[in-house]
């Protein structure tokens, strides 16, 4: 049976927010500079930047924090660090980010499951929100433009209010309660019509994109395309493209030793994970200083390949969700995935056409 759908008039939004707040701390996009947004704790609806498309960091930061201690060595014993997560409500997550969370889930759920991530993830509620693409959005190309999983409730903006669907059971319960409290109305036919129209209009609104069906072979065939060298020359190896990516999961593990009077090394220590980036020189270096990806070109190509078909084999999906964050946060302007794919596809096509029949 289909779960019921609801309508939230915009003027009732503060009440809806209160309902969310009663569950736990609410985080939502907030404007932090002329053109940037960030998920931050909010108290009032007025703090929320509903217009935000992409935040600087994706919502992965809530479940996979920038730095966290996994294991510690204390009083000569190896101990697990279990932190009891506090319930969080993340409001305003767009379809691309929902897909991103889905990918993070797959990686961290894969055996052996990552307790640290999963505990936090299961102690949260994700409230999705519809959006209108700008010139950098290409989730449509990646097939992540419609919410499929990874959320509890989804809000579609239909002008004077929101059309609301519940996905998970905790999401449906939230809606049922809010309905009982008269914060929500049942969605009527008119709402459903506008909802459909919204999604149709939205699919027409994409300004940019590419065909994905040949990505894998294109990447392989154009592995020596001169465009890589051009991009490599401009690459700062600053790593900005990876922390901002909703699906980049790479981390470094570092030990933090406590000051200790025990000189035999049995003093306390922590083992901490911190976000890392494949764009840094030492990322793939092994003993003997052999580096599998010594130059910026090698690392950039690796990144593109990983995003565009890296997980095809391992998990059967691509790890780019088309949010455009890398494109807007590259100081050098070289992480324009759409542009690069188009160049590669054109080059490939030219070769195909040049081939004798």
């Amino acid at each position: 049976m289909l779960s019921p759908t609801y309508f939230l008039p915009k003027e009732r939004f503060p009440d809806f927010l209160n309902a969310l707040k009663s569950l736990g701390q609410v985080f939502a996009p907030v404007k932090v500079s002329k053109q940037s947004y960030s998920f931050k704790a909010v108290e009032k609806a007025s703090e929320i930047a509903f217009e935000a498309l992409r935040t600087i960091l994706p919502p992965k930061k809530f479940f996979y924090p920038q730095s966290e201690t996994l294991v510690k060595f204390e009083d000569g014993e190896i101990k697990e660090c279990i932190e009891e997560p506090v319930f969080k409500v993340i409001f305003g997550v767009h379809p691309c980010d929902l897909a991103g969370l889905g990918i993070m889930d797959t990686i961290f759920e894969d055996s052996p499951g990552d307790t640290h991530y999963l505990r936090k993830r299961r102690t949260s509620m994700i409230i999705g929100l519809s959006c209108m693409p700008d010139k950098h959005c290409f989730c449509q190309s990646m097939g992540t433009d419609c919410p499929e999983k990874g959320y509890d409730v989804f809000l579609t903006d239909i002008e004077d209010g929101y059309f609301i669907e519940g996905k998970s059971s905790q999401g449906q319960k939230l809606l049922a309660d809010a309905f009982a409290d008269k914060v929500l109305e049942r969605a009527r036919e008119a709402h459903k019509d506008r909802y459909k129209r919204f999604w149709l209009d939205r699919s027409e609104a994409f300004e940019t994109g590419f065909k994905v069906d040949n990505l894998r072979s294109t990447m392989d065939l154009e592995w020596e395309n001169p465009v890589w060298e051009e991009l490599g020359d401009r690459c700062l190896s600053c790593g900005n493209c990876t922390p901002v990516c909703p699906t980049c999961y790479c981390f470094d593990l570092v030990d933090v030793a406590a000051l200790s009077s025990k000189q035999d090394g049995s003093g306390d220590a922590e083992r901490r994970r911190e976000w890392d980036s494949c764009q840094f020189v030492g990322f793939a270096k092994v003993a003997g200083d052999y580096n599998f990806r010594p130059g910026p070109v090698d690392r950039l190509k690796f990144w593109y390949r990983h995003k565009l078909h890296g997980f095809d084999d391992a998990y059967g999906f691509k790890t780019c969700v088309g949010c455009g964050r890398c494109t807007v946060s590259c100081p050098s302007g070289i992480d324009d995935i759409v542009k690069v794919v188009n160049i590669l596809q054109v080059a490939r096509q030219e070769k195909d056409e040049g081939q004798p029949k």
Partner: protein
Amino acid sequence: MIPGKTPYLSVKGTIRSIVPMAQDNYLFDFTERTGSLSGCRPGQFVELWVPGVGECPISVCSGRVSESIQLMVRRAGRVTSALFNMSEGDSVGLRGPYGQGFPMEAFKGRDLVMVAGGLGVAPIRSVWQYALDHREEFGRLVLIYGMRHTNDILFRQEFKFLLRRRDIDIFIAAEEVVGPALPPIAMQLGRVTDLLRQAEISSDSCVAVCGPPVMYKYVIDVLKERNVDEANIHLSLERHMKCGIGKCGHCFIGGKFNCKAGPVFALPEIKHVPEAIECDAASLQGGLE
């Protein structure tokens, strides 16, 4: 479901003995009481933790793992140096075993060629120990071991005994004589590839290879000359590794986590993966060919 324990938790391993093997290469023997490492298969590895310093992946180099586990470690940097400063009775953290190891079951009933370069002899040792323990289940055993300098030889004592055995053919070579004229075991001057050309290798052999990144391409070329089927060539790849469990992304190559899907791969799996077995020209200077 959410597992009860963090997968990053190690168990305590206590150093039972330390045997210096060659300069900067020591064989460490650890006792581990929980038995969590006892199912270890040849070619698998563990993450060794020196608290306050860090972790590093080290191949298990004993064919049998029960109460004790042996690791051959080369002093390469911070963690390994810290380990070298330890003495018998000191403890470290160990977690694992990780990775796929060599498909010993699939090797059974066939000739097995083992090719080791330098420190790559450590995981290969677990292979020959396993094979000798199950001698009757394998066909001919050929062991090829190459190194840069004559005094780099590891497991010298063990080789003395092995060389006397009739049921395994052993070829050892070094590129250069350094230190005492020639070690007291049969050793030639040359490269792994030279030995491969000497050895009698049937085209339906299975091959287990481990060595420095530069070695693979040349070994594969010779094996192909011998008409060995690509599908029977198994290579153990070294990659920068942090977590060992397919999360940290450091060892990711061409769609696979080396720590989980590897470190041992059959050649066809990685043949077309960029970076997997290529090597840059610069590091070849003075290299193996």
